[in-house]
């Protein structure tokens, strides 16, 4: 019995070691986090312990109220009109949008990943344009594409986790909605007039620019003013839900006098409302 036990557990140990060696030998940069999880274990998830919310349904309701406060419903659109100078969505546009999408990206409520849409588009390239084209032609985004899965994760290093602000929500939209968004985003960025609307220092949501560019611009400005023996200070404002709740004219976000001490420029994360002023 002892030899049987020894043989069995030795075989398990050998199999684990062999599997770990195989995994590391074939590791890719993408599997770095998987290796970290295997080596250090998974951090236990904190269940929100919110006051006044005793069961999961009440916790979900409290988090929804916090992250997505109720807004007045938009006025109903009775009759939709089709844009006269509208250019229909082509299958090439869909192909470009799909080529930028990761197959491992988490899908939304319909659980359909990008890999399936890529296969569908390869088999029948006219299908997705015929499905999405009427929406864009009438300038309408249906409510079913706005439904999302919300994954609540805890922010690390918080002193207490009895408040919704100690958590953040990852919103997973339907992949079909994100394909349509990519098509619209590529059309908007290709429009020449948009260049005059966007501030020259805008880094977020623009192709070829990133957070590193915003940091370099800030560093450049600070060093320039230092060289001129000016006293320089930087004020970062993180306004919660700024772009969601404020009804601002677009000129507020995209305008500013370059070089002025009070120039406002949008930061690297426009959607999160980060607006640094230098």
């Amino acid at each position, binding site marked *: 019995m002892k030899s*049987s036990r020894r043989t*069995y557990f030795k075989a398990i140990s050998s199999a684990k070691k062999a599997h770990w060696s195989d995994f590391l030998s074939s590791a890719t940069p993408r599997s770095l986090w998987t290796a970290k999880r295997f080596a250090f274990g998974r951090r236990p998830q904190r269940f929100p312990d919110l006051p006044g919310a005793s069961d999961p349904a009440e916790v979900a309701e409290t988090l929804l109220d916090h992250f997505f406060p109720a807004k007045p419903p938009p006025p109903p659109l009775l009759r939709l009109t089709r844009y006269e100078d509208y250019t229909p969505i082509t299958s090439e546009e869909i192909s470009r949008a799909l080529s930028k999408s990761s197959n491992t990206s988490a899908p939304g409520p319909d*659980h*359909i990943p990008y890999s399936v849409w890529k296969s569908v588009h390869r088999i029948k390239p006219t299908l997705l344009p015929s*499905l999405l084209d009427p929406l864009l032609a009438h300038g309408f985004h249906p409510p079913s594409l706005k439904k999302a899965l919300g994954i609540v994760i805890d922010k690390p290093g918080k002193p207490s986790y009895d408040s919704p602000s100690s958590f953040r929500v990852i919103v997973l939209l339907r992949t*079909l909605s994100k394909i349509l968004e990519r098509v619209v985003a590529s059309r908007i960025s290709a429009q020449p007039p948009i260049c005059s609307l966007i501030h020259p220092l805008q880094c977020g949501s623009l192709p070829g620019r990133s957070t590193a560019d915003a940091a370099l611009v800030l560093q450049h400005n600070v060093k320039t003013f230092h060289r001129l023996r000016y006293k320089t200070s930087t004020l970062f404002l993180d306004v919660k839900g700024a772009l969601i709740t404020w009804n601002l004219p677009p000129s507020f976000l995209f305008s500013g006098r370059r070089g002025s001490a009070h120039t406002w420029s949008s930061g690297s994360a426009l959607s999160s409302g980060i607006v640094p002023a230098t």
Partner: protein
Amino acid sequence: MFFLPKVFLAPPTAPSGSPRCTFFAQTVLLTAPYCLSGFFLVFPHLVLGDFNLHHPLADPGRSLSEREFIICTRYFDAAFDVPYHLLNTPGVYTRFPFDTISRPSVLHLAFANTALSPLVSSWDTPLPSTGSDHVPCVITLKAPAIMLPPPTPHWALLDLDAVGKALDTFTTLPCPARPTSNSLSRWFDISSTRLTSLLTFHAPSKRPCPRSKPWGSPCLSSLRREYHKFASMTRLDPSPVN
């Protein structure tokens, strides 16, 4: 979530209130933050027993000496570090001594971790005495309102040939000529649902893996069968031959 709560109890051979039982309960409480690190913290845990500890949280009406307070604080701090939540109703006694000199006290403490505490419905001492000076404590757990998610499609096993044949005959419904927001929304919902249903129909549902361990192998499975066969034989007949 794994619902069955892990319950730490005193050893059955130790009578309640005996030094061994008390030592076991206190040791569990002190070592719990270290033993339950990592993955097991998400499991519901219940630690209960006769701790022989007095604490103002459990017995607010009792005046404690400084020494008693220092001793009990150490254990309660260890419990709250996990974090464990005290289930006792403050001031409800669990021990009624037979002699008239001693005071009633709260010696039986129950702690639930964060995963279990939302499921605890009540802690009470409704039952009559069993002849001992300790009264039985009843902890009621309510069933969790958790709806298991339905099985999701295994998209890697999508039958592309069948999907291709089905898509050849698939056409989207004609869009309304002068649509309203409601009619266009309804048209899109119907069209997209028809398409997603077609795709889901040709994808098998995800099933539990035949070998849950990624390092498993058929050889290891046969070895496991042999080992457990010998182990059960040894349990049934613990003779030196086996």
